[in-house]
């Protein structure tokens, strides 16, 4: 096992509650530093499965298939020596591309060359059944339960050759067995469907509008996976008797509600899986409901620990203290306010785009307008610019907008896909 990175936990909150107050909010920043450099070849053991959609539609236009092949080849080149890997092609069923046998093979100059050659012979035919693809990946990872387990799933279409229940069951089977970054290419795939997969498997979701951009994206994803130093990190949250943990959300780099992922540890603690970590920083928003206490009392509303297996590698306290000083209890922590806004931003975009599809133009205008105002206030330039392709903005400060009539499908999907991407507070505001 390689050296662990140094983990730290920081808590941002206003611990003061008014008399009778019982809702505690805090932003938990988890940071890791000093992870070993991936390129040394002696890092943590790692396994990588690349899943390429080879359904018939990948040939229309033909450059989708050729670009996907090039991208997968670039990813193979990025694998460091010794990483166990495989390439899977996905259509109505899942097929091994390389190696032929249903197993992972260690990367070296020879296997990389063979894998790239096998990729170049791929042809597009058949349908789309992502559940079957994930099930094969799960079987491949099963013999490598330790270390980093990462998959890339590329698709260009809807999951048409399986029922939603079949996909859900396959995703549920895969949870905790590997991390999966998902990518949609073209405009015929379903954002909500792929988001469900990426989210459950703790991976990122993105849209690659032009096939040519796939290569750089695949290389970046593989590099990021190679940069991970530890797998299976969990956030353990203790809450006191009679308290209720309202939610645990990842809020940076993207909004992800983890509340339902809890695995109970004991009566008062539960673990929330955070996946694999390299040198990075992520923020979480925790909300706890505690019984109201007397003025002057202080309690620990939550005890947050970062777990690496059974080992606590960092911890922090979320506190509550009751005061009759209104100046203290009414102050809102700027980070809590910021991320509450970012979560609201993501929700408004998703609801607004759905309303637009459903023909409810009033709701769409109101929601997307609110999103414009939130993106503007929080300095989320990337989202603001994507919103500008879907609505005409009259006044960004108040969110007065008009829906655009001729919206490019790719722009709309791109906004939907990236709606959950957040930014950190601008310096000087936090």
């Amino acid at each position, binding site marked *: 096992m390689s050296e662990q990175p140094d983990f730290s936990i920081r808590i941002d909150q206003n611990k003061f509650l008014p008399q009778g107050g019982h809702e505690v909010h805090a932003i938990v920043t988890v940071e890791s530093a000093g992870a070993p450099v991936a390129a040394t070849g002696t890092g943590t053991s790692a396994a990588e499965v690349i899943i390429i959609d080879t359904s018939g539609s990948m040939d229309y236009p033909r450059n989708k298939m050729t670009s996907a092949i090039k991208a997968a080849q670039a990813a193979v080149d990025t694998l460091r020596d010794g990483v166990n890997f495989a390439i899977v092609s996905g259509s109505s069923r899942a097929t091994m591309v390389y190696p032929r046998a249903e197993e992972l093979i260690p990367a070296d100059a020879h296997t990389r060359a063979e894998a790239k050659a096998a990729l170049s012979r791929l042809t597009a035919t058949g349908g789309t059944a992502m559940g079957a693809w994930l099930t094969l990946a799960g079987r491949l990872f099963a013999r490598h339960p330790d270390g980093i387990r990462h998959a890339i799933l590329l698709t260009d279409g809807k999951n048409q050759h399986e029922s939603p229940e079949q996909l859900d069951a396959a995703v549920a089977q895969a949870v905790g067995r590997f991390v999966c970054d998902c990518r949609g290419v073209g405009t015929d795939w379903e954002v909500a469907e792929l988001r469900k997969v990426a989210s459950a498997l703790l991976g990122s979701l993105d849209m690659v509008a032009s096939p040519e951009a796939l290569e750089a994206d695949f290389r970046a994803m593989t590099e990021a996976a190679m940069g991970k130093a530890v797998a299976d990190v969990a956030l353990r949250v203790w*809450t*006191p*008797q*009679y*308290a209720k943990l309202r939610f645990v959300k990842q809020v940076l780099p993207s909004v992800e509600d983890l509340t339902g992922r809890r695995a109970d540890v004991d009566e*008062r603690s539960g673990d929330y899986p955070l996946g694999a970590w390299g040198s990075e920083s992520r923020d979480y928003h925790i909300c706890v409901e*505690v019984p109201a*206490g007397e*003025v*002057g*009392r*202080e*309690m*620990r*509303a939550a*005890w947050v620990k970062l777990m690496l297996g059974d080992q606590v590698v960092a911890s922090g*306290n979320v506190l509550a*203290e009751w*005061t*009759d*000083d209104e*100046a203290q209890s009414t102050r809102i922590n700027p980070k809590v306010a910021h991320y509450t806004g970012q979560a609201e931003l993501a929700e408004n975009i998703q609801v607004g785009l759905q309303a637009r599809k459903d023909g409810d133009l009033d709701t769409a205008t109101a929601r997307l307008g609110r999103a414009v105002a939130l993106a503007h206030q929080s300095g989320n330039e990337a989202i603001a610019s994507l919103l500008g392709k879907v609505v005409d903005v009259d006044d960004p400060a108040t969110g007065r907008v008009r829906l655009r009539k001729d919206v490019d499908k790719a722009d709309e999907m791109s906004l939907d896909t990236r709606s959950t991407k957040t930014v950190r507070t601008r310096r000087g505001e936090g």
Partner: protein
Amino acid sequence: MSVQESCPWCGSEVFAGEAFCEACGRSLTEVPAAGHGPSPEAAPAAGACAECGSTAFSEDGYCERCGLLRPGDRDHVETEAGGAAGVTDRGLRHSRNEDAMALAAVGGGVAAVVCDGVSSSPLPQVASQTAADAGLAVLTERLGAGDDPEKATRAALAGAIEAVTALAGSPHDAPACTYVSAYAGPAGVTLGWVGDSRAYWLGREARRRLTTDDSWAAEMVAHGALTEAEARVHPNAHAIVAWLGADAGEVEPHVTTFVPEGPGTLLLCSDGLWNYYPEAADLAAVLPDADPLTAARHLVRLALDAGGRDNITVVVIPLTTQEHAQHE
């Protein structure tokens, strides 16, 4: 410097003549029952949680069942040394006592330090205790070595600043506190301070405040922008402009010596008392004619009765005519 002894309850170092241990707060005149060895864990408050009755507490003092912070060892502490006495109390509105004090008989007089942790800083209770302990240690050492009281007072302040600064992980994570020290010796009273903890002279004939606050309110009054009364009720009244801590920048400590004109009481206190009795005359009017410990307890009680909104610390140092007459 007094002979050092150790507390029979917790083993901490104590000074001869002290009635209570500064570390655990227990009486030094009582002897522990057999089998009760020195153990820092066995604080008097260690017992059941006031809220849920559980006896399991985590290392940092929170109940492992209901999360409530355990009452601290510093909630109410009384100290006596060299004929002076100090009382510090959590008050009624704060969850812990972030004030600290230290008191010792030294060089034919008495030295005392009072510190008030800055609530908005991390670990203010650690900052105040660290500053008080470090300040008193340097003060007694330098005075014992024969240093001039003003020089010793400056050295003590520097020592306290260094100790509190060393607590910080970074300038953004800097524990902070106020500081006021007094050495009442044969030649008079020497004071040193940073922040808004105060010293008063309550003499038979004259009474006055001896310190000026390093506070926003004091600056406004000094510039004539606000009257004393206006400044006191302003929302910024408690904002201090100088403190001990890694984020304090360049601190200019105040050091001054004062020769009492006759017998009286030297009083050191945190704002938990002077908020209710800001003027020297107010304090003189309620100071009982009693021994120092009784007097200090009485003043703390008055602050509690008035609302106890902040932590309260009072050190009472009586100065008699004879002492000074001898040396004049």
